[in-house]
């Protein structure tokens, strides 16, 4: 971002993104902290009617910028137009919410005793990666850990997708179809009656 601009504390939240994934590597229960990234943008959109979180506080977006622009890992080529099209954005949001719902259901199955806790991280909703070192029991019931594994999978997968599109296209290409961004912009449009 323009280097002459004043930096604020929230300009460094990209560091938090790295810390988040590092913490989850050692103890999966830290994955719950990622809920902040889910709740805060919605609070800003619903209460304030703005995308202040995306514009200023999104650690993931900042990380893509730091790696893509400052480190120079991005090709900085225009992405295909369909990536920012409404059908793809809302389609990806629907897919993402479905996967979130599935993850909640998996958590419920562990809560109800129908399933046992699976200590794996699922990448791209397909590839199961063993992650058993990150959890060896706690004072919390197993469903709390199951949610952590599911949520961490979601966060890691979306970051990896973001990194891939950052490498191939512009730094923050992920922002064009980020489910939280689509959702908060939709809320803002509804609030401002500006279609």
């Amino acid at each position, binding site marked *: 971002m323009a280097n002459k601009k004043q930096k604020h504390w929230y300009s460094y939240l990209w560091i938090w993104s790295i810390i988040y994934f590092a913490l989850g590597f050692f103890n999966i229960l830290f994955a719950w902290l990622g809920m902040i990234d889910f709740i805060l943008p919605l609070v800003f959109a619903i209460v304030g009617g703005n995308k202040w979180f995306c514009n200023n506080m999104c650690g993931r977006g900042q990380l893509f910028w730091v790696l893509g622009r400052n480190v120079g890992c991005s090709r900085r080529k225009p992405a295909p137009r369909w990536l920012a099209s409404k059908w793809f954005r809302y389609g990806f949001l629907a897919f993402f919410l479905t996967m979130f719902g599935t993850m909640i259901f998996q958590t419920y199955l562990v809560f109800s005793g129908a399933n046992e806790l699976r200590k794996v991280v699922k990448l791209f909703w397909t590839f199961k990666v063993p992650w058993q070192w990150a959890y060896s029991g706690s004072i919390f019931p197993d469903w709390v850990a199951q949610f952590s594994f599911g949520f961490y999978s979601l966060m890691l997968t979306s970051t990896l997708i973001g990194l891939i599109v950052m490498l191939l296209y512009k730094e923050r290409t992920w922002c064009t179809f980020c489910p939280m*961004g689509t959702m908060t912009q939709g809320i803002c449009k509804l609030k401002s009656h500006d279609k």
Partner: protein
Amino acid sequence: MAKKRANVNKNICVACGVCRLECPREAIKIHQGCYALVNEEICVGCGLCQKACPANAIEIKERI
């Protein structure tokens, strides 16, 4: 006044705010979380926002 200016396609803009951060003249703001709004009085049409926009929603146009 500069000969060129940035023009945002509101239908494509995702309001991510990258253009606002890139603009050296602070001529862009995000309007109610919906789209980027360019202050045409301040914009010099440098094209930095266009280059940074991940949604390809910005064009640099000649002033009429």
